[in-house]
């Protein structure tokens, strides 16, 4: 169990490896069909439902779950909360993978993906989508630069690592600004459709709702990830840190809940949540799952200091967040479009393949890059894990 603790990247057959290859084997042919025969072949998208799962889940959730990246880097570098330093790398890595997932999803979802670069030269500053496009490009670059220190360190490029380190503060500052703009602009996308999006979700405050909920989801993701990597790689963060994050999450959820309810009351739309409609049911699902339940759980200090309890609460936040994004992008639009949208199995399969690739890349990164602090065992006894044995070819070939 020394080197083979890593289930995804070891060559030993395992359940998750099997799942990964199965998803790849299903997804890749579907991708080929999508490119050769059009979107209609593999998706349930239609003229009345032009955006489906790939936008609602892959894009909106991918970006949102990456929000931990800017929240944690801001805490550590701008607010000097140095005790969160060990979390910086895993969250920035997650954020980068989230954005990479978004770009891949866009390459699948855009009708003419070969024109994806067009917003660089064909400007339309009146378009929220134009802002989104620029934020994706710039923030992915910033994340890559933030990550590069880790890679330079691994390769032994001292000078490059030094330069990267010196640029940390400006990079973090830029990252926080870009993220804030991007998270909120995803909500702003829907401001154009006041007559289509159901009043339980349409509000002028959509940008802020997206921003605050993304911060909550991002923090929750840090906890979820730590638990997952503890299981898969035997590497994780100490409980006291996660407990601290869960306190921030508790505050975040409270702010979000007040904000959301106040907005509904202010617009006189709260009564819509208490009518026997499909939308009201979905609203309750979203709010109970992502806000009420985890808030109640996290109120208890016992839950906050218990790794299983924390994991459950954080997972609920993430699920509720996904429900919110899907409600905005699918549920809330169904009424006006006059039809139901249920993703085709092939849409789901491709999305699952992308998520699986994300997990696999995270696994590879944890294995080969200094993502988690090697000497994590300050107080809490970390599981006996040695730093990954360096791959000779990688270091010897490049170093020097």
């Amino acid at each position, binding site marked *: 169990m020394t080197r083979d603790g890593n289930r995804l990247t070891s060559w030993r057959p395992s359940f998750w490896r099997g799942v990964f290859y199965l998803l790849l084997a299903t997804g890749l042919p579907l991708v080929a069909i999508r*490119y*050769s*025969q*059009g*979107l*209609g*072949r593999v998706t349930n*998208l*239609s*003229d*009345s439902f*032009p*955006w489906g799962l790939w936008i609602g889940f892959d894009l909106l959730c991918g970006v949102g779950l990456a929000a931990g990246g800017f929240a944690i880097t*801001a805490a550590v*570098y*701008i*607010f*000097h909360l140095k005790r969160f330093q060990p979390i910086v790398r895993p969250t920035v890595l997650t954020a980068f993978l989230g954005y990479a997932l978004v770009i891949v999803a866009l390459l699948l*979802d*855009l*009708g*003419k*993906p070969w*024109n*994806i670069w*067009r*917003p660089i030269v*064909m*400007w*339309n*500053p*009146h*378009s*929220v*989508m*134009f*802002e*989104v*496009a620029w934020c994706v490009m710039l923030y992915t670059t910033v994340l890559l630069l933030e990550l590069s220190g880790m890679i330079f360190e691994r390769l032994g490029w001292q000078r490059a690592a030094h330069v990267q380190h010196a640029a940390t*503060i400006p990079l973090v*500052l830029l990252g*926080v*600004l870009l993220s*804030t*703009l991007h998270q*909120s*602009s995803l909500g*702003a*996308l829907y*401001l*154009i*459709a*006041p*007559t*289509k999006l159901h009043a339980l979700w349409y509000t*002028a405050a959509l*940008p802020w709702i997206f921003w605050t909920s993304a911060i909550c989801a991002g923090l929750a993701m840090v906890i979820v990830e730590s638990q997952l990597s503890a299981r898969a790689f035997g590497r994780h963060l100490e409980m006291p840190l996660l407990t601290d994050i869960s306190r921030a999450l508790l505050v975040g959820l409270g702010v979000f809940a007040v904000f959301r309810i106040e907005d509904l009351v202010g617009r006189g739309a709260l009564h819509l949540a208490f009518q026997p409609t499909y939308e009201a049911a979905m609203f309750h699902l979203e709010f109970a799952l992502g806000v009420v339940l985890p808030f109640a759980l996290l109120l208890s200090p016992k839950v906050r200091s218990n790794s299983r309890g924390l994991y459950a609460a954080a997972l609920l936040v993430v699920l509720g967040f996904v429900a919110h994004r899907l409600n905005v992008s699918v549920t809330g639009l169904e009424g006006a*479009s006059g039809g139901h949208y249920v993703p085709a199995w092939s849409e789901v399969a491709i999305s699952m393949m992308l998520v699986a690739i994300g997990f696999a890349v995270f696994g590879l990164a944890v294995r080969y890059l200094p993502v988690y602090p090697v000497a994590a065992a300050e107080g809490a006894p970390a599981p006996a894990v040695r730093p990954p044995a360096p791959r000779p070819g990688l270091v010897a070939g490049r170093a020097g």
Partner: protein
Amino acid sequence: MLTTTRPMALLIDITRCVGCKECVRACMEEHGLPGDYEKITGLSSKSHTALTARGDLYVRELCRHCLEPSCASVCPVGAFEKTAAGPVVYDANRCMGCRYCMQACPFNVPKYQWDKAAPAVTKCDFCAPRLAAGKPTACAEACPAEATVFGAREDLLAEAHRRITAEPKKYYPQIYGEKEVGGTSVLFLSPVPFEELGFRTDLKMTPPHLTAEALAKIPHVVSVGGALLFGIWWITNRREEVARVESEEARARRAARSTQSSAREEERHDS
């Protein structure tokens, strides 16, 4: 140079429409769209206009060519353009296929070629090439009942108002498209309230203004946010520096004190 600089429009008088679908036929012919025009039931990538029966009335579906088009405002690459002559035109060569135009259009007009590997958005182009040649739209030219007429928008508005005042019993007193979403270049007259014909009557706002408000905040977020973040960093950084210096000083004092006391100890031992 004659009347072409005045923004053109269509006036569709639902009281006059006989449901012959000549407009649909002419449109498909003009745009080279294959298929049987009699079987067209709605807008799709195969038809840019359609005629829907509502009781004994017929309602035309087509792009409204808004004065402030949502599609043009949301397109990240500027593939849509509201031309001075009136038409909202689309350039498939610029398009990257994000379909935000479809999501944004308050009338659900843009349709997509879901079955193509290199798809485009499709919609009525107001026969822009015909207009440029000084001709009316194909549908207006084909209409045998003058239910769809082509002309300058202000002239058609005046004509519509004239019809409503002349025959108040025949017309519902509203021109749909005069004010909706900030005004459109396709105007409707109806004998019954428009909601009975499936028209949305909650389009008092101009959608592009809603996103413009959000976009206008970007410079503030960047400038105020940037300054705020830098300020916080500066303060916390300074605090840390001060703390470091203080702890160093404290350590130095402690070291000095301990050497002093040890010296005293030694003295005592010596004596």
